Protein backbone atom coordinates (compact mmCIF):
# COMPACT_ATOMS: atom_id res chain seq x y z
CA UNK A 1 0.00 0.00 0.00
CA UNK A 2 0.96 3.60 -0.62
CA UNK A 3 -0.15 6.21 1.89
CA UNK A 4 -0.24 9.98 2.14
CA UNK A 5 0.33 10.82 5.79
CA UNK A 6 -0.35 14.15 7.46
CA UNK A 7 1.17 14.09 10.92
CA UNK A 8 1.26 16.62 13.75
CA UNK A 9 4.90 17.52 14.48
CA UNK A 10 5.79 19.51 17.57
CA UNK A 11 9.31 19.57 19.05
CA UNK A 12 8.20 20.21 22.64
CA UNK A 13 5.50 21.81 24.76
CA UNK A 14 6.70 25.31 23.91
CA UNK A 15 6.85 24.75 20.14
CA UNK A 16 3.85 25.88 18.06
CA UNK A 17 3.77 22.70 15.99
CA UNK A 18 2.30 22.05 12.53
CA UNK A 19 0.94 19.33 10.27
CA UNK A 20 3.66 17.80 8.06
CA UNK A 21 3.08 15.66 4.93
CA UNK A 22 4.87 12.33 4.35
CA UNK A 23 4.53 9.79 1.54
CA UNK A 24 4.98 6.18 2.61
CA UNK A 25 5.39 3.18 0.25
CA UNK A 26 5.43 -0.56 0.81
CA UNK A 27 2.96 -0.60 3.67
CA UNK A 28 1.57 -4.10 4.23
CA UNK A 29 -2.15 -4.36 5.02
CA UNK A 30 -1.16 -6.79 7.80
CA UNK A 31 0.89 -4.20 9.65
CA UNK A 32 -0.57 -2.67 12.77
CA UNK A 33 -0.99 1.09 12.77
CA UNK A 34 2.04 1.43 15.06
CA UNK A 35 4.14 -0.81 12.77
CA UNK A 36 3.22 1.51 9.94
CA UNK A 37 4.55 4.42 12.05
CA UNK A 38 7.69 2.34 12.84
CA UNK A 39 8.22 1.92 9.08
CA UNK A 40 7.90 5.66 8.59
CA UNK A 41 10.34 6.31 11.44
CA UNK A 42 12.94 3.90 10.00
CA UNK A 43 12.77 5.87 6.78
CA UNK A 44 13.01 9.20 8.63
CA UNK A 45 16.04 8.00 10.63
CA UNK A 46 17.79 6.79 7.45
CA UNK A 47 17.08 10.18 5.90
CA UNK A 48 18.61 11.84 8.94
CA UNK A 49 15.28 13.28 10.11
CA UNK A 50 13.77 13.27 13.58
CA UNK A 51 11.44 10.25 13.98
CA UNK A 52 7.80 10.85 14.93
CA UNK A 53 7.33 10.42 18.68
CA UNK A 54 4.31 8.33 19.70
CA UNK A 55 3.37 6.52 22.91
CA UNK A 56 3.20 2.70 23.05
CA UNK A 57 4.08 -0.14 25.34
CA UNK A 58 2.25 -3.47 25.29
CA UNK A 59 1.13 -3.35 21.66
CA UNK A 60 -1.59 -5.83 22.57
CA UNK A 61 -4.40 -3.51 23.54
CA UNK A 62 -4.11 -3.75 27.31
CA UNK A 63 -1.85 -1.00 28.61
CA UNK A 64 -3.58 2.08 27.27
CA UNK A 65 -0.37 3.91 26.30
CA UNK A 66 -0.96 4.16 22.60
CA UNK A 67 -3.60 6.38 21.17
CA UNK A 68 -3.69 8.99 18.46
CA UNK A 69 -6.52 10.65 16.59
CA UNK A 70 -6.70 9.13 13.12
CA UNK A 71 -8.78 10.96 10.51
CA UNK A 72 -10.66 12.69 13.33
CA UNK A 73 -11.39 9.52 15.28
CA UNK A 74 -9.69 8.54 18.52
CA UNK A 75 -7.82 5.24 17.86
CA UNK A 76 -9.03 5.36 14.24
CA UNK A 77 -11.91 3.79 12.33
CA UNK A 78 -12.24 0.62 14.41
CA UNK A 79 -13.30 0.41 18.05
CA UNK A 80 -9.95 -0.81 19.33
CA UNK A 81 -6.59 0.62 20.37
CA UNK A 82 -4.26 2.07 17.74
CA UNK A 83 -1.84 -0.83 18.32
CA UNK A 84 -4.60 -3.33 17.49
CA UNK A 85 -5.73 -1.44 14.41
CA UNK A 86 -4.43 -2.88 11.15
CA UNK A 87 -3.65 -1.15 7.90
CA UNK A 88 -6.26 -3.26 6.09
CA UNK A 89 -8.76 -0.86 7.67
CA UNK A 90 -7.44 1.73 5.19
CA UNK A 91 -7.34 1.75 1.39
CA UNK A 92 -4.39 2.05 -0.94
CA UNK A 93 -3.52 5.68 -1.66
CA UNK A 94 -5.59 6.96 1.25
CA UNK A 95 -4.71 10.18 3.03
CA UNK A 96 -4.37 9.60 6.78
CA UNK A 97 -4.38 12.52 9.20
CA UNK A 98 -2.71 11.73 12.53
CA UNK A 99 -3.01 14.04 15.53
CA UNK A 100 -2.41 13.84 19.28
CA UNK A 101 -5.24 13.73 21.84
CA UNK A 102 -6.48 17.31 22.12
CA UNK A 103 -7.48 18.54 25.58
CA UNK A 104 -6.18 21.30 27.83
CA UNK A 105 -5.40 18.81 30.65
CA UNK A 106 -3.42 16.63 28.16
CA UNK A 107 -0.58 18.96 27.01
CA UNK A 108 1.56 17.75 24.11
CA UNK A 109 5.03 16.61 25.18
CA UNK A 110 6.30 15.89 21.68
CA UNK A 111 4.58 15.17 18.33
CA UNK A 112 1.85 12.65 19.15
CA UNK A 113 2.77 12.11 22.80
CA UNK A 114 0.64 13.87 25.41
CA UNK A 115 1.00 14.05 29.18
CA UNK A 116 -1.83 12.08 30.79
CA UNK A 117 -0.76 12.64 34.41
CA UNK A 118 -4.12 14.36 34.98
CA UNK A 119 -5.67 10.87 34.91
CA UNK A 120 -3.20 9.69 37.55
CA UNK A 121 -4.18 12.59 39.78
CA UNK A 122 -7.86 11.71 39.37
CA UNK A 123 -7.09 8.12 40.36
CA UNK A 124 -5.02 9.42 43.28
CA UNK A 125 -8.04 11.46 44.43
CA UNK A 126 -10.26 8.41 44.89
CA UNK A 127 -9.65 5.56 42.47
CA UNK A 128 -8.43 3.19 45.18
CA UNK A 129 -9.74 1.04 48.03
CA UNK A 130 -8.57 0.61 51.60
CA UNK A 131 -7.24 -2.94 51.85
CA UNK A 132 -5.35 -4.69 54.60
CA UNK A 133 -1.83 -5.66 53.67
CA UNK A 134 -0.51 -9.13 54.37
CA UNK A 135 -1.67 -12.44 52.98
CA UNK A 136 -4.47 -12.49 50.43
CA UNK A 137 -7.91 -13.12 51.97
CA UNK A 138 -9.92 -16.20 51.04
CA UNK A 139 -11.50 -15.30 47.69
CA UNK A 140 -14.97 -16.63 48.45
CA UNK A 141 -15.32 -15.01 51.84
CA UNK A 142 -16.74 -11.85 50.28
CA UNK A 143 -19.77 -12.72 48.22
CA UNK A 144 -20.77 -10.46 45.34
CA UNK A 145 -24.02 -10.78 43.36
CA UNK A 146 -23.30 -11.92 39.80
CA UNK A 147 -24.87 -8.86 38.07
CA UNK A 148 -22.75 -6.55 40.24
CA UNK A 149 -19.62 -8.56 39.57
CA UNK A 150 -20.33 -8.45 35.82
CA UNK A 151 -20.97 -4.71 35.76
CA UNK A 152 -17.96 -3.97 37.94
CA UNK A 153 -15.81 -6.12 35.68
CA UNK A 154 -17.06 -4.46 32.50
CA UNK A 155 -16.09 -1.09 33.99
CA UNK A 156 -12.79 -2.38 35.38
CA UNK A 157 -11.60 -3.06 31.83
CA UNK A 158 -10.92 0.67 31.31
CA UNK A 159 -7.23 1.00 30.42
CA UNK A 160 -7.04 4.76 31.00
CA UNK A 161 -6.09 5.49 27.42
CA UNK A 162 -7.89 8.84 27.26
CA UNK A 163 -9.69 8.21 23.97
CA UNK A 164 -12.95 9.27 25.60
CA UNK A 165 -11.48 12.69 26.37
CA UNK A 166 -10.02 12.97 22.86
CA UNK A 167 -13.34 12.06 21.23
CA UNK A 168 -15.58 14.24 23.40
CA UNK A 169 -16.41 17.64 21.86
CA UNK A 170 -15.99 19.08 25.39
CA UNK A 171 -12.78 17.23 26.29
CA UNK A 172 -14.68 15.62 29.16
CA UNK A 173 -13.24 12.80 31.25
CA UNK A 174 -16.67 11.65 32.40
CA UNK A 175 -16.49 8.18 30.85
CA UNK A 176 -13.12 7.45 32.44
CA UNK A 177 -14.23 8.70 35.87
CA UNK A 178 -17.57 6.89 35.56
CA UNK A 179 -15.81 3.61 34.77
CA UNK A 180 -13.66 3.88 37.90
CA UNK A 181 -16.50 5.02 40.15
CA UNK A 182 -18.90 2.36 38.86
CA UNK A 183 -16.29 -0.37 39.21
CA UNK A 184 -15.26 0.43 42.78
CA UNK A 185 -18.57 1.69 44.17
CA UNK A 186 -20.36 -1.52 43.17
CA UNK A 187 -18.05 -3.85 45.03
CA UNK A 188 -18.06 -4.52 48.80
CA UNK A 189 -14.35 -3.67 48.92
CA UNK A 190 -15.12 -0.18 47.64
CA UNK A 191 -17.79 0.70 50.22
CA UNK A 192 -15.69 2.58 52.83
CA UNK A 193 -14.83 5.28 50.27
CA UNK A 194 -18.07 5.10 48.32
CA UNK A 195 -19.10 8.69 49.15
CA UNK A 196 -15.71 10.42 49.25
CA UNK A 197 -14.54 8.64 46.07
CA UNK A 198 -17.10 10.16 43.75
CA UNK A 199 -16.91 13.64 45.29
CA UNK A 200 -13.11 13.73 45.24
CA UNK A 201 -12.70 12.26 41.75
CA UNK A 202 -15.23 14.68 40.25
CA UNK A 203 -13.61 17.58 42.06
CA UNK A 204 -10.20 16.57 40.68
CA UNK A 205 -11.67 16.10 37.20
CA UNK A 206 -13.03 19.67 37.29
CA UNK A 207 -9.80 21.06 38.76
CA UNK A 208 -7.75 19.50 35.96
CA UNK A 209 -9.86 21.43 33.46
CA UNK A 210 -11.68 18.56 31.75
CA UNK A 211 -14.99 19.71 30.24
CA UNK A 212 -18.44 18.71 31.41
CA UNK A 213 -20.59 15.97 29.95
CA UNK A 214 -23.29 17.00 27.48
CA UNK A 215 -24.42 13.42 26.90
CA UNK A 216 -23.35 13.27 23.26
CA UNK A 217 -22.09 9.70 23.61
CA UNK A 218 -19.02 10.31 21.43
CA UNK A 219 -16.86 8.79 24.19
CA UNK A 220 -18.47 5.35 24.27
CA UNK A 221 -18.18 4.80 20.53
CA UNK A 222 -14.45 5.60 20.66
CA UNK A 223 -13.68 3.59 23.78
CA UNK A 224 -11.56 0.54 22.89
CA UNK A 225 -12.96 -1.25 25.94
CA UNK A 226 -16.57 -0.35 25.16
CA UNK A 227 -17.24 1.17 28.58
CA UNK A 228 -21.03 1.59 28.45
CA UNK A 229 -22.53 5.06 28.29
CA UNK A 230 -24.89 4.24 31.15
CA UNK A 231 -21.85 4.29 33.46
CA UNK A 232 -22.03 8.09 33.22
CA UNK A 233 -25.65 8.00 34.42
CA UNK A 234 -24.39 5.83 37.26
CA UNK A 235 -21.62 8.33 38.04
CA UNK A 236 -24.30 11.03 38.26
CA UNK A 237 -26.45 8.83 40.48
CA UNK A 238 -23.51 8.13 42.81
CA UNK A 239 -22.73 11.85 42.82
CA UNK A 240 -26.33 12.74 43.74
CA UNK A 241 -26.25 10.16 46.52
CA UNK A 242 -22.94 11.49 47.85
CA UNK A 243 -24.08 15.12 47.79
CA UNK A 244 -27.27 14.15 49.62
CA UNK A 245 -25.22 12.48 52.34
CA UNK A 246 -23.82 15.95 53.07
CA UNK A 247 -20.26 14.94 53.80
CA UNK A 248 -18.38 18.08 54.81
CA UNK A 249 -14.76 16.96 54.70
Amino acid at each position, binding site marked *: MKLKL*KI*WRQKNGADAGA*MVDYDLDNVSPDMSFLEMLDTLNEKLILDGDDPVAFDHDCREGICGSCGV*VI*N*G*EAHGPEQTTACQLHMRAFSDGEEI*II*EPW*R*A*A*PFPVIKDLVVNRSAFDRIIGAGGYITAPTGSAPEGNSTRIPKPDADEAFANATCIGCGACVA*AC*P*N*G*SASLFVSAKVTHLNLLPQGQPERTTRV*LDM*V*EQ*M*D*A*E*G*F*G*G*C*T*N*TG*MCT*VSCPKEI*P*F*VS*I*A*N*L*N*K*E*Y*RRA*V*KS*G*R*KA
Partner: protein
Amino acid sequence: MVETLSKNPRVTGFATLHRSTIGRKMIMAVTGLIMLAFVVVHMVGNLKIFFGETEFNEYAAWLRTIGEPALHEAWYLWIQRAVLTVALVLHIWAAVTLSRHDVNARPVKYHAKRKGGYATSTMRWGGVTLLLFIIWHILDMTTGTVNPATSHEPYERITAGFDQWWNVAIYTLAMVALCLHIWHGLWSAANTLGWNRATTAGFRTFAVFVALVVGFGFLLVPYSVVFGLVD
Protein backbone atom coordinates in the same frame (compact mmCIF):
# COMPACT_ATOMS: atom_id res chain seq x y z
CA MET B 1 -14.80 37.03 33.47
CA VAL B 2 -12.84 33.82 33.31
CA GLU B 3 -14.82 30.89 34.62
CA THR B 4 -12.59 28.68 36.73
CA LEU B 5 -14.40 25.71 38.14
CA SER B 6 -10.90 24.59 39.00
CA LYS B 7 -10.67 27.05 41.88
CA ASN B 8 -14.11 26.45 43.33
CA PRO B 9 -14.43 25.31 46.94
CA ARG B 10 -15.89 21.83 47.29
CA VAL B 11 -19.47 20.69 47.07
CA THR B 12 -20.80 19.90 50.54
CA GLY B 13 -24.52 19.53 49.90
CA PHE B 14 -27.32 20.52 47.55
CA ALA B 15 -26.85 24.22 48.41
CA THR B 16 -23.33 24.15 46.95
CA LEU B 17 -24.12 22.01 43.90
CA HIS B 18 -23.31 24.89 41.57
CA ARG B 19 -19.60 24.49 42.34
CA SER B 20 -19.01 21.41 40.18
CA THR B 21 -19.65 20.56 36.54
CA ILE B 22 -22.01 17.72 37.43
CA GLY B 23 -23.80 19.88 40.00
CA ARG B 24 -24.31 22.66 37.47
CA LYS B 25 -25.56 20.16 34.97
CA MET B 26 -28.09 18.96 37.53
CA ILE B 27 -29.29 22.54 38.03
CA MET B 28 -29.64 22.78 34.24
CA ALA B 29 -31.59 19.53 34.13
CA VAL B 30 -34.04 20.43 36.91
CA THR B 31 -34.71 23.96 35.62
CA GLY B 32 -35.13 22.52 32.11
CA LEU B 33 -37.68 20.01 33.37
CA ILE B 34 -39.61 22.77 35.18
CA MET B 35 -39.79 24.75 31.92
CA LEU B 36 -40.71 21.61 30.03
CA ALA B 37 -43.62 20.92 32.39
CA PHE B 38 -44.91 24.43 31.67
CA VAL B 39 -44.39 24.02 27.93
CA VAL B 40 -46.41 20.78 27.81
CA VAL B 41 -49.35 22.27 29.76
CA HIS B 42 -49.21 25.43 27.61
CA MET B 43 -49.33 23.38 24.41
CA VAL B 44 -52.34 21.37 25.56
CA GLY B 45 -54.11 24.56 26.73
CA ASN B 46 -53.62 26.19 23.33
CA LEU B 47 -55.61 23.40 21.69
CA LYS B 48 -58.76 24.88 23.27
CA ILE B 49 -58.76 27.23 20.30
CA PHE B 50 -60.42 24.47 18.28
CA PHE B 51 -63.56 24.86 20.45
CA GLY B 52 -64.12 28.38 19.20
CA GLU B 53 -63.53 31.99 20.12
CA THR B 54 -65.76 32.20 23.21
CA GLU B 55 -64.46 29.09 24.88
CA PHE B 56 -60.84 29.99 24.16
CA ASN B 57 -61.16 33.49 25.60
CA GLU B 58 -62.99 32.10 28.63
CA TYR B 59 -60.14 29.65 29.15
CA ALA B 60 -57.60 32.50 29.01
CA ALA B 61 -59.66 34.48 31.52
CA TRP B 62 -59.92 31.45 33.81
CA LEU B 63 -56.11 31.20 33.91
CA ARG B 64 -56.19 34.48 35.82
CA THR B 65 -58.53 33.05 38.43
CA ILE B 66 -56.48 29.97 39.39
CA GLY B 67 -56.09 29.76 43.16
CA GLU B 68 -59.01 32.07 43.93
CA PRO B 69 -60.35 32.79 46.44
CA ALA B 70 -57.19 31.87 48.38
CA LEU B 71 -55.18 33.97 45.95
CA HIS B 72 -56.08 37.35 44.53
CA GLU B 73 -56.79 37.69 40.80
CA ALA B 74 -53.78 36.78 38.60
CA TRP B 75 -51.55 36.04 41.61
CA TYR B 76 -51.08 32.47 40.52
CA LEU B 77 -50.00 33.71 37.11
CA TRP B 78 -47.38 35.97 38.65
CA ILE B 79 -46.07 33.20 40.91
CA GLN B 80 -45.70 30.99 37.84
CA ARG B 81 -43.95 33.77 35.95
CA ALA B 82 -41.51 34.24 38.84
CA VAL B 83 -40.72 30.52 39.02
CA LEU B 84 -40.20 30.28 35.26
CA THR B 85 -38.00 33.37 35.20
CA VAL B 86 -35.79 32.01 37.97
CA ALA B 87 -35.62 28.65 36.14
CA LEU B 88 -34.73 30.35 32.86
CA VAL B 89 -32.02 32.51 34.41
CA LEU B 90 -30.42 29.56 36.23
CA HIS B 91 -30.66 27.42 33.10
CA ILE B 92 -28.96 30.01 30.93
CA TRP B 93 -26.35 30.74 33.59
CA ALA B 94 -25.48 27.03 33.81
CA ALA B 95 -25.48 26.68 30.01
CA VAL B 96 -23.19 29.65 29.49
CA THR B 97 -20.70 28.89 32.25
CA LEU B 98 -20.51 25.18 31.43
CA SER B 99 -20.16 25.86 27.70
CA ARG B 100 -17.29 28.20 28.43
CA HIS B 101 -15.63 25.58 30.64
CA ASP B 102 -16.13 22.97 27.88
CA VAL B 103 -14.66 25.18 25.15
CA ASN B 104 -11.62 25.88 27.34
CA ALA B 105 -11.02 22.14 27.69
CA ARG B 106 -10.38 21.83 23.92
CA PRO B 107 -8.20 24.85 23.08
CA VAL B 108 -6.66 23.25 19.97
CA LYS B 109 -9.11 21.91 17.40
CA TYR B 110 -8.57 18.80 15.28
CA HIS B 111 -7.57 19.20 11.63
CA ALA B 112 -9.69 16.25 10.58
CA LYS B 113 -13.36 16.72 11.35
CA ARG B 114 -15.34 13.72 12.47
CA LYS B 115 -19.01 13.07 11.86
CA GLY B 116 -21.44 13.12 14.76
CA GLY B 117 -21.63 14.96 18.06
CA TYR B 118 -24.07 17.56 16.74
CA ALA B 119 -26.25 17.46 19.86
CA THR B 120 -24.06 19.85 21.85
CA SER B 121 -23.90 22.62 19.24
CA THR B 122 -27.59 22.16 18.42
CA MET B 123 -28.41 22.64 22.10
CA ARG B 124 -26.30 25.79 22.30
CA TRP B 125 -27.64 27.47 19.16
CA GLY B 126 -31.14 26.12 19.74
CA GLY B 127 -31.08 27.55 23.25
CA VAL B 128 -30.15 31.01 21.99
CA THR B 129 -32.93 30.75 19.36
CA LEU B 130 -35.40 29.85 22.10
CA LEU B 131 -34.33 32.80 24.24
CA LEU B 132 -34.90 35.21 21.34
CA PHE B 133 -38.21 33.50 20.67
CA ILE B 134 -39.35 33.85 24.30
CA ILE B 135 -38.78 37.63 24.04
CA TRP B 136 -40.62 37.82 20.71
CA HIS B 137 -43.47 35.64 21.96
CA ILE B 138 -44.05 37.83 25.04
CA LEU B 139 -44.10 40.96 22.87
CA ASP B 140 -46.51 39.22 20.49
CA MET B 141 -48.99 37.36 22.71
CA THR B 142 -48.58 38.77 26.23
CA THR B 143 -48.06 42.50 25.80
CA GLY B 144 -49.32 42.67 22.20
CA THR B 145 -46.60 45.21 21.37
CA VAL B 146 -45.79 43.63 18.00
CA ASN B 147 -49.24 42.12 17.40
CA PRO B 148 -51.58 43.74 14.86
CA ALA B 149 -54.76 42.89 16.86
CA THR B 150 -56.82 45.88 17.96
CA SER B 151 -58.34 44.22 21.05
CA HIS B 152 -56.77 42.46 24.04
CA GLU B 153 -58.66 39.22 23.32
CA PRO B 154 -56.25 36.26 23.05
CA TYR B 155 -58.24 34.72 20.20
CA GLU B 156 -57.87 37.81 18.06
CA ARG B 157 -54.18 38.09 18.84
CA ILE B 158 -53.70 34.56 17.56
CA THR B 159 -55.66 34.97 14.34
CA ALA B 160 -54.24 38.42 13.59
CA GLY B 161 -50.70 37.36 14.49
CA PHE B 162 -50.70 34.29 12.28
CA ASP B 163 -52.28 36.10 9.32
CA GLN B 164 -48.73 37.37 8.78
CA TRP B 165 -46.77 34.65 6.97
CA TRP B 166 -43.41 35.74 8.38
CA ASN B 167 -44.68 35.43 11.92
CA VAL B 168 -45.72 31.85 11.14
CA ALA B 169 -42.17 31.32 9.85
CA ILE B 170 -40.70 32.65 13.12
CA TYR B 171 -42.90 30.35 15.19
CA THR B 172 -42.08 27.37 12.96
CA LEU B 173 -38.35 27.94 13.32
CA ALA B 174 -38.69 28.34 17.08
CA MET B 175 -40.77 25.18 17.43
CA VAL B 176 -38.20 23.20 15.45
CA ALA B 177 -35.58 24.52 17.88
CA LEU B 178 -37.82 23.60 20.84
CA CYS B 179 -38.46 20.12 19.44
CA LEU B 180 -34.73 19.46 19.02
CA HIS B 181 -33.96 20.95 22.45
CA ILE B 182 -36.42 18.58 24.12
CA TRP B 183 -35.30 15.68 21.90
CA HIS B 184 -31.80 15.78 23.36
CA GLY B 185 -32.52 17.70 26.56
CA LEU B 186 -35.13 15.47 28.12
CA TRP B 187 -33.05 12.36 27.62
CA SER B 188 -29.92 14.24 28.65
CA ALA B 189 -31.65 15.41 31.85
CA ALA B 190 -32.54 11.81 32.70
CA ASN B 191 -28.89 10.87 32.30
CA THR B 192 -27.64 13.87 34.27
CA LEU B 193 -29.97 13.06 37.16
CA GLY B 194 -28.81 9.43 37.09
CA TRP B 195 -32.18 8.00 36.11
CA ASN B 196 -31.02 6.05 33.07
CA ARG B 197 -30.39 2.36 33.60
CA ALA B 198 -28.51 -0.40 31.76
CA THR B 199 -30.56 0.27 28.68
CA THR B 200 -30.88 3.93 27.83
CA ALA B 201 -33.53 3.27 25.18
CA GLY B 202 -36.49 3.92 27.50
CA PHE B 203 -35.88 7.60 28.18
CA ARG B 204 -34.56 8.18 24.68
CA THR B 205 -37.81 7.04 23.09
CA PHE B 206 -39.85 8.98 25.64
CA ALA B 207 -37.85 12.17 24.93
CA VAL B 208 -38.36 11.86 21.17
CA PHE B 209 -42.09 11.26 21.73
CA VAL B 210 -42.49 14.31 23.98
CA ALA B 211 -40.42 16.43 21.58
CA LEU B 212 -42.59 15.53 18.59
CA VAL B 213 -45.88 15.92 20.46
CA VAL B 214 -44.85 19.36 21.77
CA GLY B 215 -43.49 20.53 18.41
CA PHE B 216 -46.49 19.40 16.35
CA GLY B 217 -48.99 20.30 19.07
CA PHE B 218 -47.85 23.92 19.16
CA LEU B 219 -47.65 24.23 15.35
CA LEU B 220 -51.23 22.99 14.89
CA VAL B 221 -52.48 26.43 15.96
CA PRO B 222 -50.61 28.75 13.55
CA TYR B 223 -51.10 26.36 10.62
CA SER B 224 -54.81 26.07 11.36
CA VAL B 225 -54.97 29.85 11.01
CA VAL B 226 -52.97 29.70 7.76
CA PHE B 227 -55.28 27.03 6.29
CA GLY B 228 -58.46 28.73 7.51
CA LEU B 229 -59.50 26.08 10.07
CA VAL B 230 -59.40 28.82 12.69
CA ASP B 231 -60.34 32.39 11.76
